[in-house]
């Protein structure tokens, strides 16, 4: 017996439901598939500076036209770790882009799924010299390069100081690191002990150094560079736990002295806290790329005009500048590896690297020391030359460094992401633990990281 009412029968409902189900094939997770020969899909990092994406698009389009390859370029943000999760999803699905951008540690995390690119690297090194040691440490796995270090997104975190404060204290930072290719005797005196001398007056002047001791990268990076400059290694290159060594204790003793002059809330600093402190005119020194200066140019021009960027202080074992490189990796499931390698080789030519760097006001750092002389770093202002000493230059006598180096990479990535170094410091300086207690905690943590 047919149901009357609205005149729609159950059979009609069934047909409608079936049609709707077929039409609603939900693309809940859009995982692109690699293209056949003649096509390439690339997932670039979505640059903080919007002009960076435009410059990349233009270069990719020019290459694609010349080589008759159909290229699809996506720009994936690192906010919320989206780019890391995209890589995880594509690695699990064995499907996705042909080329993907990988941040500092993620290139090693995905080593098993990436195509070796020694041929690309060898050709680039032959032309431009050795790639910096941090990139090699992160992207050379079992003797093979598994990613091409990119300039896009790669950064240093040197000192960014208020000129007027230090001048009032008797230190002319512009003379110490002038905007010209010159090594000064004064720069040899820029050590952690020297910095400590100015920390007290900075606190008294209500401009305490905004040096975070939180769990995010800005915090972990500068403390890692400090530790390395003391020769302090939590885990050595062979994987032995050396946290209870004398250099580590010396580094911790230094931090105990410095922490007294830092703001109380440095333990909750994220990656933007030091930026905000600088832009608000509340600090005399941070360790950061020029992004905070760039925002201060817009929001607080008088602070921006008072900023000068130069390398981090030196310790007993040298001067180490925190470096976070980005990489481009080719998935092993890519169906167009040769085109992918060609594109990466093209993008890493000096002309292309410089063009992209100009677009982002010098934010990007090339992996080759021979490319540390781009004009952009001399030109941006105010003040003129403010970021001349942002890239590590030959006369700086400085070495790019990554926190947790030289531990084996699969241990170092955990030390880094778990913020073991800053937590170790915080347990003593804020948590009230003795050095022995804090070191025992660290030993326990590190033993966990060495599991297979």
């Amino acid at each position, binding site marked *: 017996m047919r149901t009357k009412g609205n005149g729609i029968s*159950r059979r009609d409902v069934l047909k409608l439901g079936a049609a709707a*189900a077929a039409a609603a094939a939900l693309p809940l997770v859009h995982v692109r598939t690699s293209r056949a020969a003649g096509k390439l899909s690339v997932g670039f990092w979505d640059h903080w500076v919007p002009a960076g994406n435009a410059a990349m698009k233009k270069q990719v389009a020019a290459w694609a036209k010349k080589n008759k390859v159909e290229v699809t370029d996506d720009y994936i943000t690192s906010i919320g*770790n989206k780019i890391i999760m995209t890589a995880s999803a594509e690695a699990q699905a064995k499907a996705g882009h042909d080329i993907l951008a990988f941040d500092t540690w993620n290139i090693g995390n995905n080593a098993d799924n990436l195509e070796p690119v020694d041929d690309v690297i060898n050709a680039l090194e032959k032309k431009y010299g050795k790639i910096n040691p941090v990139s090699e440490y992160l992207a050379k796995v079992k003797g093979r390069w598994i990613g091409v270090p990119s300039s896009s997104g790669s950064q240093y975190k040197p000192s960014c100081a208020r000129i007027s404060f230090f001048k009032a204290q008797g230190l002319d930072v512009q003379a110490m690191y002038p905007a010209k290719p010159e090594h000064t005797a004064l720069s040899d005196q820029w050590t952690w002990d020297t910095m400590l001398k100015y920390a007290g007056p900075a606190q008294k002047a209500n401009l305490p150094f905004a040096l975070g001791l939180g*769990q995010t990268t800005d915090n972990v990076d500068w403390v890692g560079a400090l530790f390395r400059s003391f020769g302090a290694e939590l885990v050595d290159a062979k994987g032995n736990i050396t946290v209870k060594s004398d250099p580590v204790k010396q580094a911790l003793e230094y931090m105990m002295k410095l922490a007294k002059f830092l703001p109380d*809330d440095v333990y*909750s600093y994220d990656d933007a806290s030091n930026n905000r402190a600088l832009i*608000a005119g509340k600090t005399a020194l941070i360790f950061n790329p020029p992004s905070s200066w760039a925002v201060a140019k817009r929001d607080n021009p008088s602070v921006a005009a008072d900023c000068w960027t130069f390398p981090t202080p030196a310790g007993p074992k040298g001067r180490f500048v925190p470096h976070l490189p980005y990489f481009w990796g080719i998935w092993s499931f890519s169906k167009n590896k040769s085109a992918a390698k060609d594109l990466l080789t093209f993008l890493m030519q000096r002309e292309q690297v410089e063009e992209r760097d100009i677009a982002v006001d010098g934010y990007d750092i090339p992996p080759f020391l021979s490319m540390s002389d781009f004009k952009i770093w001399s030109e941006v202002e105010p003040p003129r030359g403010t970021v001349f000493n942002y890239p590590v230059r030959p006369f700086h006598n400085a070495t790019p460094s990554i926190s947790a180096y030289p531990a084996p990479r699969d241990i170092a990535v*955990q030390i880094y992401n778990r913020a073991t170094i800053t937590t170790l410091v915080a347990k003593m300086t804020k948590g009230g633990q003795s050095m022995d207690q804090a070191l025992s905690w660290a030993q*326990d943590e590190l033993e*966990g990281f060495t599991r297979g």
Partner: protein
Amino acid sequence: MANRSIPATFFREEIAGARAGVIRLLTRRRSTIAFLMCLPLILLIVGLVLYPGLYAIYLSLLNKRMTQFVGLGNFTFLLRRSTFRLVIFQSCLFAITAVFAKAVIGFTLAHLMHNLPAKNQRVWRGLLLIPWVIPLAISTLGWWWLFDPSYSAFNWVLSGVGLPEVAWLGDANWARFCMILVNTWWGTPFFMIMYLAALKSVSEHLYESAAIDGANAWQKMRYITLPMLRNIISITVLFSLIVTFANFDIVRILTNGGPQDQTHIFATYAFQVGIQSGDIPLGASVSLFMLPILAVASFFILRGVTRRSKETI
């Protein structure tokens, strides 16, 4: 008598006819239509809940490189780590404290609302629901600005009245307080609306009879309101416990587990260990730790609800 041969097509036609009849029968049944209408949701749940859950269990039984089966090795490894034991403590502290605060405040608000005139109730109900309606990540960002080291509005007020500034997210105890505060602010409207609905279902006659017998306000609460609302209290507490245990946004945005891992809970620790540090099996193991805790809590709470329901019948 000679048998006539039955054509081969006869049986095919019979079978086809029988099949068509079954299909026709099935399509006419309401249960079939109901099933097909539920099918998209079932597929969603299978695809986004069941499959990831089972895959997570599978991953948690593998070694770090996902090449070898290690059984419960990941779980025993975690229990030996002092940081993970801290995560268990913090997760329980966060969940239990926040749920208790939400229940008490929600109950109080529901009572206040219940006693307002109907016209005013609507306005207040709408206003008090706002925290729950705003997406949690956005409201947590707002709270984060209130606690920010450089721009904290709370510290601006404190310094304005001559009090010292507080390192809201830099001190472990204050950071835990802030997390619980934000979760309570966000979740209280849910409790309030559930209890308000339950209060409206309690017969006024009971209160009138109690008043005639000389019961005061506290006695009415104790002998009428609470027993009548016991089941809804149990269910809301259980639901909120599950959601709060699995919370990620608030901790991730406010503190990222710091300072010194003192605000890490299961979800944030699992993310840091699994995704950021590249040990996916260990991350899966961390997230699955919630399962036995919540299963035990669910068992006892639901058992109580079932017993009380049987008693009332």
